């Protein structure tokens, strides 16, 4: 009996499920010579699939098709599933660079994978345009002259939410935090901006990750501290559970605000407006911001099979488009020969695309983009299934990114 039980628990503790290898191809353009190859290395089967995966691929393909149609440059987009494992990501990247003639790798959600692949691209003198990577180390201590961080980083999220809310009078905070490195970092970053803006952090409840499904205890601890804002330093299913349970226990009815430090429009749809209404979050893209974002959303939606046009789709579109412009400007031959030259050209040329508008890429590889603080609409305010966010505040592009001198990127001279 005892042996059986021990064996059972041993097996129960075995590895988490991994996804199957996944590949898709999209052809764009009919130009001369070997096409420029772009590999979208993303999460096709795991926790970030809904956020990135097919949406990221659609954005990159859209950019390739538009650019090919306009210039005649032949571009091919392929996709790979890194399964959130750095070793799998690095293997695919090496194979792509060495055997498949891939010139640029895009997306890379999951910072561990992104940082590993970035080193491979540097070693092979290729290009990485990371849209899904959120770690500030990507353009900080572990920056690479061959890499660009296009869509967001955790600094922007923390500042966009923490700073803006305190300035609107929500100045006492309590955090509900996932007890691991990511949760701690998100809490610490946000707390810094809250305190810098004159706010006060009353405390934090750290819950075991990933073993927690019921958050009511931690929510009641937060409520007992009587803050104006509860900051959720977690993501995905944990965040959704926190929100659902906070509503259930009537926290919002007492005038408490919920700040979600890493939430996207996909989470809003997953919660549904009745549960999500009033939530606050920062993102760098929303499809309904202005006429250009709406035009982009209209063009790309046919590739998304009913999914919303989100920041991953937009980031991979904008990043790929800007990369292709730099390739065209250098000429495909020299561009293929030196990834470093392409990234330098990307930094030298101003960016402009329908998803993000005009902008530029800084010396350390960070694309400067405004941080938008959004609030989820109430069901009565929404006029369609994807009409879910309204803009509350904007952090300008130059101040949304961490100051260059604080990053510690070795090749940047300040």
């Amino acid at each position, binding site marked *: 009996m005892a042996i059986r039980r021990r064996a059972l628990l041993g097996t129960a503790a075995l590895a988490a499920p991994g996804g199957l290898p996944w590949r898709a191809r999209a052809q764009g353009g009919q130009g001369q010579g070997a096409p420029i190859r772009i590999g979208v290395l993303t999460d096709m089967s795991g926790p970030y699939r809904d956020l990135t995966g097919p949406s990221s691929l659609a954005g990159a393909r859209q950019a390739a098709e538009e650019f090919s149609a306009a210039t005649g440059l032949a571009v091919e987009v392929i996709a790979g599933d890194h399964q959130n494992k750095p070793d799998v990501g690095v293997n695919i990247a090496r194979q792509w660079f060495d055997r498949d003639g891939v010139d640029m790798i895009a997306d890379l959600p999951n910072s561990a994978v992104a940082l590993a692949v970035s080193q491979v691209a540097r070693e092979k003198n290729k290009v990485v345009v990371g849209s899904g990577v959120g770690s500030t180390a990507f353009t900080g201590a572990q920056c690479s002259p061959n890499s660009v961080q296009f869509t967001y980083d955790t600094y922007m999220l923390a500042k966009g939410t923490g700073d803006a809310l305190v300035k609107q009078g929500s100045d006492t905070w309590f955090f509900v935090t996932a007890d691991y490195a990511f949760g701690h970092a998100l809490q610490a970053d946000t707390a810094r901006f809250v305190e810098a803006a004159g706010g006060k952090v009353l405390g934090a409840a750290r819950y075991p990750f990933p073993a927690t499904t019921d958050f009511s205890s931690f929510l009641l601890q937060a409520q007992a501290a009587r803050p104006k804002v509860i900051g959720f330093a977690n993501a995905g299913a944990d965040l959704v559970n926190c929100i*659902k349970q906070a509503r259930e226990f009537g926290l919002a009815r007492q005038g408490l605000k919920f700040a979600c430090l890493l939430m996207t429009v996909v989470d809003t749809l997953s*919660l549904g407006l009745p549960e999500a209404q009033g939530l606050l979050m920062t993102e760098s893209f929303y499809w309904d911001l202005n006429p250009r974002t709406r035009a982009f959303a209209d063009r790309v939606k046919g590739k998304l099979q009913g999914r919303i046009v989100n920041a991953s789709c937009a980031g991979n579109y904008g990043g790929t488009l800007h990369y292709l412009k730099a390739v065209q400007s250098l000429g495909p031959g020299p561009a293929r020969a030196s990834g470093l030259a392409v990234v330098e050209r990307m930094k030298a040329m101003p960016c402009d695309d329908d998803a993000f508008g005009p902008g530029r890429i800084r010396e350390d590889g960070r694309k400067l983009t405004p941080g938008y603080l959004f609030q989820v609409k109430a069901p009565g305010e929404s006029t369609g299934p994807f009409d879910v966010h309204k803009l509350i505040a904007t952090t300008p592009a130059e101040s949304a990114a961490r100051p260059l001198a604080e990053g510690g990127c070795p090749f940047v001279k300040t």
Partner: protein
Amino acid sequence: MDDIFGIPAPLLFGQLLLGLINGAFYAMLSLGLAVIFGLLNIVNMAHGAQFMMGAFAAWMLLAWGGIGYWWALILAPIIVGITGVIMEKLFISKLYKLDHLYGLLLTFGLALIIEGVFRNEFGSSGLPYRIPPELSGAWDLGFMFMPVYRGWVVIAALILCLATWLMIEKTRLGAYLRAATENAALVQAFGVNVPRMITLTYGFGVALAAVGGVLAAPIYSVNPQMGSNLIIVVFAVVVIGGMGSILGSVLTGFALGIVEGLTKVFWPEASATVIFVIMAIVLLARPAGLFGRA
């Protein structure tokens, strides 16, 4: 305000009540596991996936068929129970003569496949399911805000556990079942169709997991991983209670929910570990579990 061990009394009472509610879920899930293990000797690692399927069935009934919560509470377990019957017929029935580990590995593999298929079909970020209007709202208990739905979960779990225990321990059908697990050949000789009874028992255990899933859908994120987080704790509950002991796993489920709730007050970071510490101590002191027969 009165303090108990430095914690304000209202907070402590609140946490005790929450622990009881979480214990209701542990009890319901460990009940199904205990029934399947006690009567079939199969360690059903697919239980978490079947719990998830119950929640998804409720979502599908609502989104595709317009069928609400109350009917889902009846229909979802039947639907998921039927998939369990098919699974038992196709796969599990081949393994009764082999070592337990084979059943464990098979059901573990099936759980991974089921979760993968759901993730591919429905994505990883979860689907919305609302609390039914009859059960929304909350009671103000003075020391805390008690959602009506949570109260309903505790009541439903108690009824379900009691009914299952009565059926297995006090009815003729339950007597046949228990006899069949002791000596299948003899019971078959008396004219009872033992293989069919075993198949239906597995289906029933699976249906219990699905009921838990429907009850969980309005308060937890309905996503393909929702069962895998819970199942490891539930296995620990079953081991502490004594494998195959139905009453034991129910009582242990509620008790551990309360212990976990208290840990969340005094030392939140340890609340996931405390159940496994208790498990280790119980295994050292009483290898057959608190209520198990060695």
